[in-house]
Structures are given as C-alpha cells and as structure tokens.
C-alpha cells in the first residue's frame, strides 16, 4: 500500500518562488492494486513517482510505503532510496551494460543489507527470470538483449527482492507499437498474478485504460480526476480530462433546465440536447457538452423516435478499415464520429445524428 498525503515538490528555477512540479496531491494505492498516474509531459507524474522512490526529496507532505513512513516534511523523516521496500523499472530500463543478465538480476540480492547465500541467489534469480520468460538467458551480456527482453530483464531485477511496491516509469515508451501491445498484456497479467501493489506512470491513455484498476489524471502538478478506467473515460469531470483521454466532440451551450438525477437540458447552437450533467452546475451555467465519436448513432433516414436527433450533412468520410471516420456538419458545430465499416456515404449526403443522452456529458465551460 502507498499513501501520499499533501505531497509538494518545488524545483528551484532561479526565481524566489520556484516551480511547483507537484502541488499538494494526496492519493492512496490500495494493497495489490494497479494504480496509474496519467498525464501530459511536465504534469508532475514522474516527479511524484521519484519522490516515492526516494530519488527526489519532496518539500512538503508525507509518504507511507507498506504502512511505514518513508518521508515526512513535518518531522524530517527521509528514508534513503536504497532502504525503501520498492522495486522500480525505469523508462530507459537502466540495464547495467557491464554485467550479464544474471548479474543484473542478482545485484539487488548481493547489495542488500541481509546476506543471502549464493545458492539462494541462484534460485531467486532463476525464479525471477522465469517469471519474465527469460530463462536460459542468464549468461548473456545484458546489452545483447533486444529492447523487449531488456524491458523484461528490468522487470525481473525490480521483482527479485520481492518488494512491497513496484514503481514503473513509462516502461513501454521505448518499445515499438506491436511489442508495446504485447507487453501491456504481459505486464498486466504478471501484476495480477503476483498481486503486487503497483504504481504506473504514463502519458499513454491506452496503457492507462487497459492495465489499471484506478487512474489518476494529472495536470500542472495536481490530480484532476481519479477513478476507474471506465468512469474516467465515460464520465470525465473536466474539459481537460475529456480532451486528454480519447478523442471527443465538444459543443458549447447553456443549461436551460435541470431535470434531476444528474441529467439536464442544454441549449446549443444546434438545438436542445438532454444529457448528463456534472454536480454543482446550475440552470444558466455555460457548459461544454462532450460526446465520444463512437457514441454517436448515424441515420441516413430521419428516425421517427428518439431524442437528441440533429440533422446534418456529411462533410467527409474516410474509410479506415476497422471503421469509417465521418465528419458531420451540423448548423454550427462539426462532429466527428466512428461508424461501422459497412456504412456507405458521400460528401453532402443528408444524415441525422442521434446523441444518446446517457453518453453526452455537460461540463463547466471554463476550467
């Protein structure tokens, strides 16, 4: 378990104020869960991870790892990185080029405080390498491994000490697309099997959505939304989250009526839309209605029933194999939608879009 309380990290930038890379964030990674910090570069996610690892010293707050206080600004606690029960995989893998695969994995066992007999080292390294399917590679020089193998080696090295917590700093970003997809799967399987508390840092939404139990979206040093992947994707609470995760359509408007049960009617330039609404917004609020391209239903004949139906024209239609990417020109807004590959339309065709009320979300217009 990792507990972060009011963590602050300020980088000296020569000015007296400094840059608040991490600005008072708190979160908890429950035992055995896969928790992801997701955000654009410079949002403070890596800094947070490095503070937990002990590679950076935070300026404020408290960090507990496996119930033990490893950092506290209040009483000055700072457990050095090498005394924390943590395994870490770096973005560059940080495989030591002067050691063999075996030596790389054995290193954490050999430098640790407790002495481990060489027979035990052998056994543990073997298990760790088997875990990542690198058995039989022990005697190779680490640099002779391919990118994906180096990645797994880094993982084996992080796990061999049986740490309480695993930290992963964008471990997949140096792999090519195909391999990344496979490693995503393998990493998730390994984590679920070992049930190790894992904190993952990435800027890739697919990685975050596919692997995590919980995602925290970060921006400018703060967590803007925390939740299960499905909730983050389907119920973004801010324009930033809606934009950062997946592609999204936006229509500005004004709330005309709160219906209750978290739904409302919003007047947009292209007519009234009923949709879900974020708590705290009132009638008259300026809002942005967001809707995912794949949520939109497209009709070539005007549907007789259904709400939120708006007439429009096809602006462009691109056949992408898996789906057809259509741009639809409404009166004022332009929507993007993904339709089944069977759809056959042409530029200028009249169409009707149906926006399912449950998948439209009204968010505050200003962040």
């Amino acid at each position: 378990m990792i507990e972060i309380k009011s963590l602050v990290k300020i980088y000296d930038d020569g000015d007296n104020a400094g840059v608040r890379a991490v600005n008072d964030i708190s979160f908890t990674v429950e035992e055995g869960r896969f928790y992801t910090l997701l955000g654009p570069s410079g949002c403070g996610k890596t800094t947070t991870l490095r503070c937990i690892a002990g590679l950076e010293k935070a300026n404020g707050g408290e960090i507990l790892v496996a119930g033990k206080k490893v950092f506290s600004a209040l009483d000055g606690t700072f457990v050095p990185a090498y005394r924390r029960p943590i395994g870490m995989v770096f973005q560059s893998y940080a495989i030591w080029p002067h050691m063999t695969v075996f030596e790389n994995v054995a290193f954490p066992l050999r430098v640790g405080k407790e002495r481990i007999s060489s027979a035990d080292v052998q056994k543990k390294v073997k298990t760790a390498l088997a875990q990542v399917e690198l058995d039989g590679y022990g005697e190779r020089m680490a640099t002779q491994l391919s990118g994906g193998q180096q990645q797994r080696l880094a993982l084996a090295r992080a796990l061999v000490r049986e740490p309480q917590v695993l930290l992963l700093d964008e471990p997949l970003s140096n792999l090519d697309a195909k391999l990344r997809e496979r490693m995503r799967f393998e990493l998730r399987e390994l984590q679920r099997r070992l049930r190790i508390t894992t904190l993952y840092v990435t800027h890739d939404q697919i990685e975050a959505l596919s692997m995590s139990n919980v995602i925290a979206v970060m921006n400018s040093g703060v967590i803007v939304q925390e939740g299960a992947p499905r909730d983050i994707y389907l119920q973004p609470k801010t324009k930033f989250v809606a934009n950062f995760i997946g592609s999204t359509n936006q229509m500005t408007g004004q709330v005309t009526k709160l219906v209750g049960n978290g739904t409302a009617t919003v007047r947009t330039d292209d007519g009234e839309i009923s949709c879900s609404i974020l708590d705290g917004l009132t009638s008259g609020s300026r809002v942005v209605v967001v809707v995912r391209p794949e949520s939109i239903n497209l009709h070539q004949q005007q549907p007789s029933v259904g709400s939120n139906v708006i007439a429009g024209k096809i602006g462009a239609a691109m056949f992408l194999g898996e789906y057809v990417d259509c741009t639809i020109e409404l009166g004022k807004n332009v929507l993007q939608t993904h339709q089944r590959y069977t759809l056959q339309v042409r530029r200028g065709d009249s169409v009707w879009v149906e926006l399912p009320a449950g998948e439209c979300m009204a968010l505050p217009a200003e962040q």
Partner: protein
Amino acid sequence: MATAAIPRTGKVSMSLDPALLVPLVGAGILVYLAVLPLLMLFVGSFQAEVAPREFVYTLKNYQAAYASEYTYSTFLNSLIFASGSAGLTFILGTMLAWLTERTNTPLRSLFVPLAVVPLILPGVLESIAWIFLLSPKFGYLNVWLMNLFGLKSPPFNVFSLPGMIWVHSVGQVPLAFLLMVAAFKSMDPSLEESAMMSGANTWQTFRRVTLRLLMPTAGSVLLILFVRTLESFETPALIGIPARIYVYTSEIYLAFNEYPPDYGRGGALAVGLLLLSAVGVWMYTRATKEGKKFQTVTGKAFRPRQFDLGSWRWVGFGFLSGYFLFVVLLPFLVLFWASFLPFFATPSLDALNKLSLDNYRYLGTFRPFWEALKNSILLATLTATVAMTLTSLVAWIVYKSRLPGAWILDFLAFVPITIPGIVMGMSLILLYVAFPIPIYGTIWVLLIAYVTRFIPYGMRSASGSILQIHSELEEAASASGASWWETFKRVTLPLLRPGLVAGWIYICIVSFREFSTSVLLATGDSRVLSILLFTMFEQGQVTVVAAIGVLMIATLLSIVAVFYKLTGKVGIQT
C-alpha cells in the same frame, strides 16, 4: 535513392569521368602529404651518407638510436614523464569534471569555462611561465616561500622530472577535463538510480556501477594523454634539455642539432616514436569503439544527478578556487608582470618603480619579431584555409559520393593523427633535403607540415557537418528543380558553413601555437613566433619573451572570441 550529387557525364568511362578524377586527385594529395614523408622517414632511417649525396643501406642508425648508453635512460625518462603526466592530468581533470558536473559545489558552473582557459596558453609559454614561478634560482614561488618560512634552499625545482610532469600536466588538464565532462554527461543517471532502487547504498552504487561504467572511458583518456605526452616537445625542450633530462622527442631534436646533423639516427628514433604513437592511437580507436557497446537504450534527455557533498562542498569549492588561482591564473599573471620589467625581478616596491613599456617599445622596431608575427599569421590562415578546403572535399567524397573505396580516403586523412609533431618535422627534412623542390627553409615546408598534421582536425569538423546534412535535404532541392550547383550553393554550403568556420578557426589556433614541428623546420627567415620565443628564451632575453608571449596570448584570445561568437560553445578535438 542512390543518386550521388556528382554531375553525370552520361556514360561510365574509367579514365575521364570527373566523378572519379576528383577522388583520385584527393587521394593523390593525401598520399603526397601523409604517406610520402613517412616513407622517406622509413627509408632514411636505414640509410647512411658515406660520401656527399651517396647513400648505403645500413642498420647502424638503429644501433646508434636504440643500443647506445643513453637508450635506457631516455626510455625510462620518457616512460616516467608520459605516465606521470597522464596520471596527474587525469586525476586533476577528473576531479574538476566531477566537482563541476556531478556535485553541488558552490559556483561550479562558473568554473566550467575557467577550466578550459589554459588551452589558450601555448605550450612554450606554459613552460616559460612555470620556469618564472618555480626556477630554483629566481622562481617567484621559491623566493616567496623561502622568505616566508625562512627556508635555506628553494622548495621547488622545475628543472626535474617531477617539474616537467607538473608543467606538462597543467597544460593538458583542459583536455582531460573536457573528455571526462563528456563521459559524465553521457552517463545515464538512471543506471545509478536503479542501483539505489535495488538496495545499494551510495558507496556501493559508486563502486559497483559508476566506477565500472567510467572505466572504459578512463582507460582511453589515460591512453590518449600518455601518447600526447610522449609526442610533446615543449616541456622537454624548455625544461628537459637545460636540466639534462632527455626524452624521446628531445633525442630526435638533438640528433638533428648535432654538427653535422645525424639524420639517420634521428630518423631511426622517429620511426620508433611513430610506431609507439600509432599503436596508442590504434588502441584508443579500438577502445572507443568497444565503448559504444556499452550504450543502452536511452529515453529522454538525462536529468543531471548531483551528489550532495554536504559541508564537504566547501572543500570542493576550495579545491576549485585554489586550482584556478594558482594553476590557471598565475602563469598568465607572471608573464604579464615580467613583460613590463627591464630584467627579471620579484614583485616588490623597488621592482614596481622599474615597470615600463620598454619591452613593447623594443619589439616595435625589432625586425625578427615582425617577421615571425607575419609568418605565424600567414601560416595560420593559409593552413586553416587549405586544410578545410581539402578536408571538406575529402569528407564529401567519403560520406556522400558512395564510391567504392571511399573509405581509403577516410583512412589516409586519419593517418596524420598518429604522426608526432617532431616526427613530421624529421620526415619532411628527409623528404625535401633529398627532393629537388627548393622549399626547404621556407615557410612553404611549414605550410605542408601544418596542413598534414591538422588534416584530421579538419576532417572531424567537415565530416561532422556533412553527416548532419541528411541527403534528403539535397534531394528535396533537386526535386524542387535546383541544379547541382544551385543545390550546393543554396542548401549544402549554408548548412555546412558553421561547422567549417569552427574548424577553420580551430586550425588557425593550433597552427598559431604550433611548436614541435616548427622547431626542426623553421629556420632564419621562416621563423614563427613560438620558435622566436624559444630561441630568445635560450639567449636569456626573458622579459622581451614575456612581452611577445603577452601579445601572442592577446592574438589568440581575439581568435577565440570570434570562435565563441560563431559557435557559441567550448569545443576541442583530440
């Protein structure tokens, strides 16, 4: 796209195709410059003149060179001088690099440019300045320390092996510093961080990861320092010869300065030095290639990781300040001070009254000074121009023409890096004394020598900038309808210019301070500044020498100022 940008001639014909002619001419020039002198040296080392212009082949030269009563002491001196200097230079350079790059020593970023300053001081002046400071008879530091502590004898004697090692080392420190800074910079800090995350404490991390990763670099830096010291002649000439401590380079010089000059023995000695240097360079090249295997995948730019030295950082600060005051600044100050004196004297109120501009006034009408200045400037600019033109042509052929065998040109242009300055001088003497081209004793033979020696430097700038230009940039110009010439003029040349200018200025600087080749080739009218300094210092006109030195430094500083302005970075080539 396999289109070389060489103008097409329509058909392939071996004899007339200009696309083949240009590389062949290039190869011819390189062979003439780099290979022919070495061949002459080799042949000459096996020849003896039995009657005027009549030679026989013999092994006598090698016997005289390597089996004399001095062989052993020369060998030992060279070994101690080279390994001592390499060791000391490495330690100082690494300390400076580590303190400024990897620790939180106060004001460390200020020290980075300061550490490179000694590069500006020509080796001859470095030696002269330290003689002013550490001479047992009149050295300032000795006099001061004797007065301060009431010592009966001078604490330092620069005319000794340790003295030579010290003087040569402090001149080489910037090189070691820059190489080690590069090593520290290119090290992925996450390699150390992952050791800490594996449970290794600071000391274990340093010993088992940092040190091990630096080892290949450290080895090759030590090697290059060793070879460069072995090849150097400034300190052996100005300090070694008066102290009767002879090394390889001074033996070669002395064989030449005997009457009659013993070219055969000099040649045999030079062949030995050349081989040593070639082996060194070969090992260095191999080591740095091996080093590439040590690279791992790297992600984002490295976040510098700094060691917190705690209160020890003030010790580091003390070391840095001490180094800059006593090792960097003092030699400049002592030359500056001495240049205003009528004769050498320790700084005092009495001496203060004697300060005058007399030395500079004297130089105003001193013809040899103006001759030497003219020669030095002419040679520096000519060498830079010729070398850069030649090397950009060669680099273009090597990297862009896709001609089979282009690597031969690359190799030929690399050969001179193995030729020690004094060996270059010796070879050219043997070549042009025997050859019927009457350039021996003129500045033209110096031009040939300089161009040859600095071709590798030119190659590095030229190939660096040529490799930067992706062929697609030129192909895009062709695709836009530009002719070969238009492409060259509007795309290639503007992109090459910064690199070529940097190379030009760098060669200008090294030519201007050149000493070890010139010492054998520059005579009478073809004397250059460094040689004038040397002869006048030997004749005892030390304060005039200091004045020349100050003017020389001023000239070099202005070239460097231009260099900075144009390139905006510190850079040297080895």
